[in-house]
């Protein structure tokens, strides 16, 4: 364990001057200055943070916004008539409007604040699933889903005697799109797929899946946990019925997130949590519910976190995201090339369309051991099943090691990763 004073000491370490090596011309050195957490050493080595798919770091802008809210604006939202409550409400609703513009939703009331994707998918399961899914009906998910987009539907299927069906994938980790059409039947009540695989990096053709599902009148939920960190998302262009966002994966604090849903669908759904703020009127005989989005936002929300999400969107709007995406693709290509050249390393997930997520296994070495040895080099990766055990079974591995890159990572860090993996192989040889 590192002593707290050591951590403070290391935060003052100068940022290493790393020029961008790729054609995108992305000024990664300047971008890194925005992320204070990156300026530290771990086990005496500069932190190499490659666990962005688990949780991304926040830029100073997001941190400052949270501090400003807590120092100057905090109060409960939507209730008080006093000055602070109005300021908090303005900031909170301002964040909602930022989300609306960010994903191009028609109306802000289509953006429901939730704690993250897990809560978001559970909201749709309770609100839509429990109302509209019955015995013999089917929910269609994919073989690469995160547990958050499997377990809620299994729970629903168990309760309603409905059936969970699965879109298969090929050995590269791509959905078999040809199968989708046949899997959607008159019994299908919902298709629920991830935009980008957290474990493989695969970018799924969600627009095409929506088109196929809509041909048969079936709504589609897109788990966008890994979507918004890497891609510009336009929910009207995708035409999905639900798009779920996790704030902390897109540089905002944990506890922030969004369920986007088409208004006409959200209006027909049951509420999620019961309680304050989601009602129109309550008596012991009958309660009537509030309109959108309040109907789904019972209780005092995570105001500071959601305002932080708004600030993260401001940050993303302040950078050139097209260039950032190009840079991430360059990083991915470079890291893939370096790792693939190491004997004994096998990359899991080689889809044609990939985000900067690099899952791999090393012959005879368990991913946890890779993770521990890399940590000694200051490199943070994820080792495990990535909450996608059915996917691990599909690839015949108990777990993988995963390096996931953000636009603040560098080519030098990809080199450090490859060098450290060579060291792992040496230890275990």
């Amino acid at each position: 364990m590192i002593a707290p004073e050591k951590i403070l000491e290391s935060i003052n370490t100068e940022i290493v001057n790393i020029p961008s090596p790729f054609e995108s011309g992305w000024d990664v050195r300047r971008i890194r200055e925005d992320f204070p957490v990156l300026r530290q050493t771990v086990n005496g080595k500069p932190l190499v943070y490659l666990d962005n798919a688990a949780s991304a770091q926040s830029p100073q802008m997001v941190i400052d916004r949270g501090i400003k809210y807590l120092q100057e604006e905090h109060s409960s939202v939507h209730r008080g008539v006093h000055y602070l409550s109005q300021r908090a409400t303005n900031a909170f609703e301002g964040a909602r409007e930022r989300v609306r513009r960010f994903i191009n939703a028609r109306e802000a009331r289509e953006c429901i604040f939730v704690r993250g994707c897990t809560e978001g998918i559970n909201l749709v399961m309770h609100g839509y699933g429990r109302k509209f899914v019955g015995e013999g009906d089917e929910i269609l998910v994919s073989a690469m889903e995160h547990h958050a987009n499997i377990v809620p539907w299994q729970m629903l299927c168990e309760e309603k005697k409905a059936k969970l069906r699965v879109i298969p994938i090929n050995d590269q980790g791509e959905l078999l799109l040809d199968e989708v059409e046949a899997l959607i039947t008159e019994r299908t009540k919902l298709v629920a797929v991830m935009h980008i695989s957290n474990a493989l990096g695969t970018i799924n053709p969600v627009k095409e899946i929506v088109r196929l599902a809509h041909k048969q009148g079936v709504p589609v939920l897109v788990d966008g946990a890994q979507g918004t960190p890497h891609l510009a998302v336009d929910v009207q262009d995708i035409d999905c019925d639900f798009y779920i966002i996790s704030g902390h994966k897109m540089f905002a604090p944990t506890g922030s997130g969004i369920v986007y849903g088409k208004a006409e669908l959200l209006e027909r759904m049951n509420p999620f949590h019961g309680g304050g703020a989601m009602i129109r009127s309550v008596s012991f005989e009958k309660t009537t519910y509030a309109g959108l989005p309040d109907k789904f936002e019972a209780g005092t929300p995570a105001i500071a976190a959601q305002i932080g999400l708004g600030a993260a969107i401001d940050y993303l709007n302040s950078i050139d995201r097209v260039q950032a995406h190009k840079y991430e693709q360059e990083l991915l290509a470079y890291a893939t090339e370096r790792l693939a050249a190491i004997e004994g390393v096998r990359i899991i997930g080689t889809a044609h369309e990939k985000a900067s997520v690099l899952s791999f296994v090393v012959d005879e070495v368990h991913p946890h051991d890779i993770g521990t040895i890399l940590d000694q080099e200051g490199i943070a990766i994820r080792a495990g099943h990535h909450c996608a055990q059915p996917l691990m079974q599909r690839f015949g591995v108990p777990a993988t090691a995963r390096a996931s890159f953000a636009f603040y990572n560098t080519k030098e860090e990809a080199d450090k990763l490859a060098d450290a993996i060579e060291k792992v192989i040496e230890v275990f040889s």
Partner: protein
Amino acid sequence: MSELSELYQQVILDHNKKPRNYHKLESANRVAEGHNPLCGDQLTVYMQLEDEVVKDLSFEGSGCAISKAAASMMTQSVKGKTRVEAETLFKEFHSMVKGELDEEAQPNNLGRLKIFSGVRDYPARVKCASLSWHTMHAALQGEEAASTET
């Protein structure tokens, strides 16, 4: 911070590569499954318990080097022990990897199991080292399942 070599000692790497007593045990009258739900590791411990003595012991399963080596050495250490001796060893091992037992200063029966003391500097790996011990303990208790999360 201890050096990496203290965790991945040669003995541990050797047991990882060539785990001892790594097979199904036909004579077993106790079988317990161990799961670490956080990482998905799982193993099965087979035990032949007669007159309160562990006559034979083996394991199968998948896991990291630490969990595999710990399981391998657990079977070696517990084989031939009485129930009471095995339970004592379980408690001592568990205390050591959690950093609650100073294996050099306080009396114990750990012997060569002390090479796992380095695990206490890696809190995330304590469950890897103790999974097989929890599972052995469950087998002794006549339970069929053990989890690091209970």
